[in-house]
């Protein structure tokens, strides 16, 4: 399945958002959105991924 993660295309085998984070080795403090909608951490395991989904994975960064 092809999805877009943080703007770049990837071929992934995960079928849920939680599975995707695991597959990508992302264990830190992040927030997620799929197709421009926020997906809280508690709902990642039950959030299915579909071909063409746009996933944003955001982390704490410097800001003004």
């Amino acid at each position, binding site marked *: 399945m092809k999805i877009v993660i*943080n*703007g770049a295309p990837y071929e992934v085998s995960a079928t849920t958002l939680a599975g995707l984070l695991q597959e990508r080795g*992302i264990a*830190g*403090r*992040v*927030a*997620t*959105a799929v197709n*421009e*909608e*926020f997906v*809280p*951490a508690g709902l990642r395991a039950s959030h299915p991924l579909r071909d063409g989904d746009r996933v*944003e*994975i*955001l*982390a*704490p*960064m*410097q*800001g*003004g």
Partner: protein
Amino acid sequence: MKRFYGTELPNPLMLGTAQYPSPAILEQAFRTSGAGVATVSLRREGAEGAGAAFWKMIQELGVLILPNTAGCHTVKEAVTTAHMAREVFDTRWIKLELIGHTDSLQPDVFQLVEAAKVLTEDGFQVFPYTTEDLIVGERLLAAGCEVLMPWGAPIGSGRGLNNTYALRAMRAEFPEVPLVIDAGIGLPSHAAQAMELGYDAVLLNTAVARAGDPVAMACAMVRAIEAGRLAHEADPIEARDMAEASTPVIGKAFLA
């Protein structure tokens, strides 16, 4: 000192965390100056996991965390970013930025009011980056904001307070509301001026981070803010056009 959504600031300097020459200098700028609040952001996580290291350092500073919605241009984008920030940073505080103009980074106050209402209803405590417009200020308060953050000058411009007349009017119009000058500060004298006007805090980033010596500049800002605050409390004199002798005239020797 006024409370910000029930929280007293340890120090009225809200300091940004971006653009420092190194994480070590950023950390030292906070530790040495004693800035009370750190503004932070959310960005795409790279493979290297830079976010985790940054977050650990910020947490160890022990300062209050104010996440922003920097770079958002629509209500939806800002609201979604705020929700993501609340989860990551574990705070209801959000510095709401809704940019309306690319060159000046002037806030889009129409969308700002709308987003502030949505976020307040969602349980956020909104710190809106706004202009000095009094009616917008009223609308933001009506939307549920308990803090207003008018700009001094465009973000990163270092021009200081562009419109002291309007900022003074804003202070007079909202005497009970915590007011923060957010953006445009370039020098400690600008920060002092904001506090002399009776503002409750100053939020700045570039002026410190891009200074030749950010640590020294952060300290200078804190001292200027403290001086300005003391001056405001001390009830300064009014400026006048003509001289008024300070040395008593009575008792002066006749020697002419």
